[in-house]
């Protein structure tokens, strides 16, 4: 096989990677504030896509509104998840809470199936037009939206966590819960905000992805797993790492499928996850892992 496919493989990899990066950013948010790995993140993405489709094709709202409204809606879902499942268990061990998020993810998936059925749904692309040819690759305009959203969301959240009082308070909660409480931070409220924001980020991913991926009730799990690979690869907690990790996972999949075999596409991502967990658990960017006090 000659090199003619390479530009397309790279373009595909980066698009897919941007999606994984958006999911990874959602993981980071909850992790940065609470220390919890929120496995319902994939379901937030699914809900974002489903709400967008519902707003657009069933409520007949304009596309722009149909894409923005779900962000608010899934933020509420995120807050709800925290209020009903995490908050009542705030004295429980971290691991218990992580298990709870797995349960939440299953529950949300089941609920989505009851509401929307097992079908997939379409959403028109944000900007119309033919695909763009660039250096031998054909890129869908929607892919550019995906990449832009991933970069913008990652940057905005990094700024938020580093430069605003709210954001720093959020990080403080994860670094040392008791100390944060002592200096007057309302830890539970910060946690709730983290879940809400993670919901919002998930919804952005969900609606920007919908025109490409045709969401159905069960897309969340696969995205959560790939997003988790990306987050771990980049060093969990670091948004720059999430972007890098996401793109690496995407490229790896695409090149692996292109040059080795499409049958093992998913295996490449998970193989790398295993390698990173074994050899460099703190991630490629080597951000020291934050841990909650005992």
């Amino acid at each position, binding site marked *: *096989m*000659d090199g*003619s*496919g390479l530009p*397309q*493989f790279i*373009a*595909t*990899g980066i*698009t*897919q990677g941007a*999606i994984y990066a958006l999911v990874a950013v959602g993981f980071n948010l909850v992790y940065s504030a609470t220390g919890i790995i929120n496995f319902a993140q994939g379901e937030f993405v699914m809900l974002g896509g489903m*709400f967008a489709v*519902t707003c657009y094709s*069933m*409520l007949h709202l304009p596309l722009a509104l149909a894409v923005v409204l779900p962000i608010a*809606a899934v933020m*509420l*879902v995120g*807050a*709800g998840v925290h*209020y*009903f499942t995490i908050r009542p268990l705030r004295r429980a061990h971290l691991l218990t809470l992580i298990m709870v998020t797995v349960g939440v993810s299953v529950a949300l998936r089941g609920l989505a*199936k009851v*509401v*929307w*059925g*097992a*079908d*997939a*749904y*379409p959403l*028109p692309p944000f900007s119309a037009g033919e*695909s763009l*040819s660039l250096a031998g690759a*054909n*890129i*869908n305009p929607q892919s550019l939206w995906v990449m832009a959203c991933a970069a913008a969301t990652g940057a905005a959240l990094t700024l938020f966590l580093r430069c605003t009082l709210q954001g720093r308070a959020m990080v403080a909660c994860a670094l040392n819960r008791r100390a944060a409480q002592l200096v007057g931070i*309302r830890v*539970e*409220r910060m946690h*709730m905000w983290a879940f809400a924001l993670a919901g919002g980020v998930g919804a952005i991913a969900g609606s920007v*992805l919908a025109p*490409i*991926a*045709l969401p*159905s009730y*069960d*897309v969340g799990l*696969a995205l959560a797993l790939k997003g988790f690979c990306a987050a771990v690869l980049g060093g969990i907690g670091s948004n720059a790492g999430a972007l890098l990790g996401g793109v690496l996972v995407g490229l790896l*999949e*695409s090149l692996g*499928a*292109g040059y080795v075999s*499409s*049958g093992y*596409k*998913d295996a490449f991502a998970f193989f790398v996850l295993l390698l990173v967990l074994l050899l460099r658990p703190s991630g490629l960017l080597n951000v020291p892992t934050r841990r909650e006090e005992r």
Partner: protein
Amino acid sequence: MDLQVRRVVTVVVCLLATLLLVAGCPKAPEDESSLGAGMPTRPTKPALTGEPIKVGAIFSVTGTAGAPLGTPEKETALMVEEMVNDSGGINGRPLKIIIEDDQSDNTQAATAAKKLIEADQVVAVVGPTLSGTTLAIVDTFEKAQVPLISCAASIKITQPVKKWVFSTAQPDVLAVARLMEYLKAKQIKSIAVLYDSNPFGKSGAEVLDKQAPENGIKIVAKETFESKDTDMTTQLTKAKAANPEAVICWGTNPGPAIVAKNMKQLKMSIPLFMSHGVANRKFIELAGDAAEGVVFPAGKLLVAETLPETDKQRQVLLDYSKAFQGKYGKSADTFGGHGWDALQLVIQALKQVGPDRAKLRDAIESTKDFVGISGVFNLSPTDHNGLTKDAFVMVTIKGGNWTLAEQ
């Protein structure tokens, strides 16, 4: 804080409830038809006498895998029961169809089979909906010596032939055979195959592997995708590099819709062929513009109205569509058609030989020229399906609608 959170939660609940209602609304078409049928104003039916003849049915009315298929089958069964009893029953005796839901689950199917055979003492059973559930109960029927007419497509149901087991669904071998015939007519000699990694796609790919060389067609690239994959441009780029004359995509929604969209994105202009797995409205809805010009083999029900007047099946198809649409307010589909064919085979045989399991089996096996929804059935001791590749027509999508593909 609690108050505030409570407010937030209230809003969430309201919002979820609203979305639930909105999403739920279009899914209750039955209500309308039942309203209309509230007060029976049917013509007086002939009085039926004697014990009802009991026929069993096992459909996947619930459960992830089977519900979209089993539901129209159940609705068809209810409709058939009513039609038969309104028009004189079976030689004057009423027909009673006892429907069991196997919940798309093998164990439940086995339980339902036992109940129908032993407790209800039915003369024959139609269904189940799925290949898995059918294969799970085949032995039960062979032992109990009760005819079973499955609505599932796996070739394993009828090959090798099992004495008491029949099937009315078109196996994928025939869909591929029809496609091959079309490719040959179009003088396409090399193809790239993209298939879904689910059982439907894998089985299709195996059959393609076998039939393509027999027809002098070369598979120059063979790629797979996961059912939940969101992008197939990598596989298509690889396929493109092998310079095929056409792409064949074998899968069920939503994968094939993404393949169609990705081909448009990559500006690949070679013809795209698909399987009968996309013979549904959903595919057109999902793929949008990209669905235009896609060609695939499908049962004739899809294009009943555009069939030539000379087609044997035309009238049967139109009658079934009209009856189903009239009763349930939604369009009939292939799966309901499998149920229709299975029941008609049993009813025809019952009218000939009466409610005796062994005689019934022999009568079903000797059915010739039965014009059904899925095709014209010619059963024999060596063929318990009875369909040929003519059960499929090549269909293309034009202007968001199906039409017969030009030969």
